[in-house]
């Protein structure tokens, strides 16, 4: 989160923080562990009134930012979600709403209203199962056949698929990358739940067996969706990072308080140099995570060149160091840190879940390295 927010941004953040403090204290989060959806529809709809679902949609289609920087604003909500380990399909709904806003047909954009109101859910079907579960290796086939599109393939993991009214499906047509918007109850769509580390977020395998939708289900032009897909992935990555950083901030704060309160050998833990030095490292990782993610968000909002590199760098950094920070917080707590009773695991769960979504840190390091090598080859006039 930025070191300085505008007063409107602070109001947005604070409203969400207070709503989550009141409506979703950690014991309620724990109580949702066996809930099939992981959240109550009324909780989601009321949160939507606070701006959770409208920030990435243009004013023309019923949304609007508070600062003019859409993702910067949305990241504040995501930060508070992380800091509260809050439930709800925050990222998938916003990714789909923003995609429909950007490239949807008028009929598709008509769905945005209900997404903004929190009365309908949509999710993005992007990742695929092994052996294609690396970042953006999708193989799902979208085949035009007369007046229809036929969809065949498997997507995994898909967040909140069982709650979704619509699925935004990313795949390939013969001539390139394509996306379609599919009602979740279309024949041939089957949803199989996955187990997950998070207490309240739900994921599924979604199988498309010769699913037939009309041609106008395409979102944007067939074969020309690569840029839009990249943008959706960047948005999802940066929002998940913001959420992870909120969780890191909370885990760090809890652990710092613990170090002052807990005495061993007549001294607080915080007085041991070994412990102090680890906190210094943790704070440097936390601040660097804020900094690189905010830099990537600023690039995204500005459409700046170099955004892809910054996004992957932020993903790799926050993924790796976020997990390390959370695990070190557990270590500094000792045994209590791995009990269900303690709150720390709520944040650990959220941090490590987000690390795995939309590419691992190693995949994104490779992406950053690849971009640099490509640039070097171009500069040297080599063929790629």
């Amino acid at each position: 989160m930025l070191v300085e927010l505008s007063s409107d941004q602070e109001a947005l953040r604070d409203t969400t923080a207070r709503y989550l403090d009141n409506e979703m204290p950690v014991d309620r989060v724990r109580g949702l562990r066996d809930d099939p959806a992981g959240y109550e529809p009324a909780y989601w709809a009321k949160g939507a009134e606070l701006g959770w679902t409208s920030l990435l949609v243009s004013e023309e289609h019923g949304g609007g930012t508070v600062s003019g920087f859409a993702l910067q604003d949305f990241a504040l909500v995501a930060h508070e979600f992380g800091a509260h380990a809050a439930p709800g399909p925050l990222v998938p709904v916003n990714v789909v709403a923003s995609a429909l806003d950007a490239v949807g047909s008028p009929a598709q954009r008509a769905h945005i209203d209900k997404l903004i109101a929190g009365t309908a859910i949509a999710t993005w079907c992007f990742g695929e199962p092994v052996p294609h579960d690396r970042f953006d290796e999708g193989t799902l086939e979208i085949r035009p056949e007369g007046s229809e599109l036929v969809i065949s393939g498997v997507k995994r993991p898909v967040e909140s698929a069982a709650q979704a009214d619509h699925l935004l499906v990313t795949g390939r047509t013969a001539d390139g990358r394509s996306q379609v918007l599919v009602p979740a109850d279309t024949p041939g769509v089957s949803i199989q739940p996955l187990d997950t580390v998070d207490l309240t977020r739900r994921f599924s395998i979604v199988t498309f067996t010769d699913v037939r939708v009309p041609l106008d289900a395409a979102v944007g032009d067939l074969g020309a969706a690569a840029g839009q897909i990249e943008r959706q992935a960047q948005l999802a990555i940066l929002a998940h990072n913001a959420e992870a950083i909120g969780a890191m901030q909370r885990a760090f704060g809890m652990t710092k308080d613990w170090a002052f309160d807990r005495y061993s050998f007549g001294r607080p833990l915080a007085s041991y140099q070994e412990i102090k030095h680890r906190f210094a490292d943790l704070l440097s990782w936390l601040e660097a995570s804020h900094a690189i993610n905010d830099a990537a968000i600023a690039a995204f909002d500005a459409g700046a060149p170099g955004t892809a590199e910054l996004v992957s760098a932020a993903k790799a950094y926050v993924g790796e160091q976020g997990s390390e920070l959370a695990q070190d917080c557990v270590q500094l707590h000792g045994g209590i840190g791995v009990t269900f009773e303690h709150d720390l695991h709520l944040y650990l769960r959220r941090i490590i879940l987000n690390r795995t979504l939309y590419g691992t840190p190693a995949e994104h390091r490779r992406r950053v390295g690849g971009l640099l090598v490509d640039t070097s080859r171009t500069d040297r006039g080599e063929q790629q």
Partner: protein
Amino acid sequence: MRTDDLEDVESFRARARSWIRANLRPLQPGEALSTLRNIRTEEEELAGVARDREVQRMLFDAGLAGVCFPREYGGQGLTQAHQQAFNQEIAGFEFPSRLQAPTFSPCAAVLLDFGTEEQKLRHIPAILKGEEIWMQFLSEPSSGSDVASALTSAVREGDDWILNGSKIWTTGAWWSDWALCLARTNWDVPKHRGLTVFIFPIHQPGVQINRIEMLNGSKEFCQEYMTDLRVPDSDRVGDIDGGWTVGTRWMFHERRLFSSPLVTVPSGQPHGGVSSSFLVDVARDSGRIDDPRSLELIGEARMLELAKESLQGRIGRGMALGKMSDQAAALGRLFGGIAAARTFTVSFELAGSVAATWTDDDGSASLAGYDYLMRQVACIGGGTTEMARNVVSERVLGMPREQTMDHGVPFRDVPRGSSARR
């Protein structure tokens, strides 16, 4: 301060850009290298110093020197945003790298904070014209991290002070002009209360300079011996025995070096560590550029560069807004040291066997071995990462201070190791 007549950032940027492109030499790929590599002859080093002075003078004459220095001392009186624009525009071009640290900061920064009007008028314009290159006479052979335990003594004699002692780890003292020196003026009070700061020309009879050969053959680090060196009281900075007040700010300026408004740090250029674009050359020269593992390592180095650059920006903004304490600068020092050390490791790994056994034909990879031998300099020079961790935990997070054996004890009674007894 009046802000209504300030040049706006974008017109300053345009002015800087056109001047830089018209007057400065673009860097060759891989040219922005660490000065710690033993790759220049003495003549080449002196030619580099002369060119740095010349470019600094050209910047001064063009109204581009000392962007954030006050106008009354020859600076431009502009803001950090202007300096950032300058950092972006000068990236990829030659610039007076040897003058940034420690001349502009911490030395000139300390003069601005504590110098008398006469001292500032005499030295700041000369610094901005490239006429004076400054060194920090701070560390001593017997005290690195614990700088307040300095043994260099200054004894009052009429209007003068007589200095005796030794300072160490000054980079390039052999071609520099002036020293900012921390000395002990009172041995009968606890260590922090008996220090005073002085300035004096380096090249004079009372100062002997020895160049230290580092393990890679570099001789840029120096040790100085002051023997009955006479310094007029008018060249004292701050109060007598008030040297720690000066020293605290001095070290703050040192820790925040790369987010300081007084220093030019070209965007995307590594300060300490190996640049990710150089690592691409290493991987190419070692025949590993197509290995997925190489891409991952290069990507990691680039990630660290971006994280470091954005962290420095965040800390700079946080401090400017008063949302972070000045001590938060230690976070940048800590992160920068660890990240730089990691890039040397990456370079060493990418270079394969060439890292340890090479010929002149092995290109960029042939530099990886010596860089790796010198890796820990990134975590030692400018204050160790351990000291930065102390500052972060104690001054930023408010954790209890380390117990010391010298608190409240007259300095002459503080226990010292055998090499530091006198």
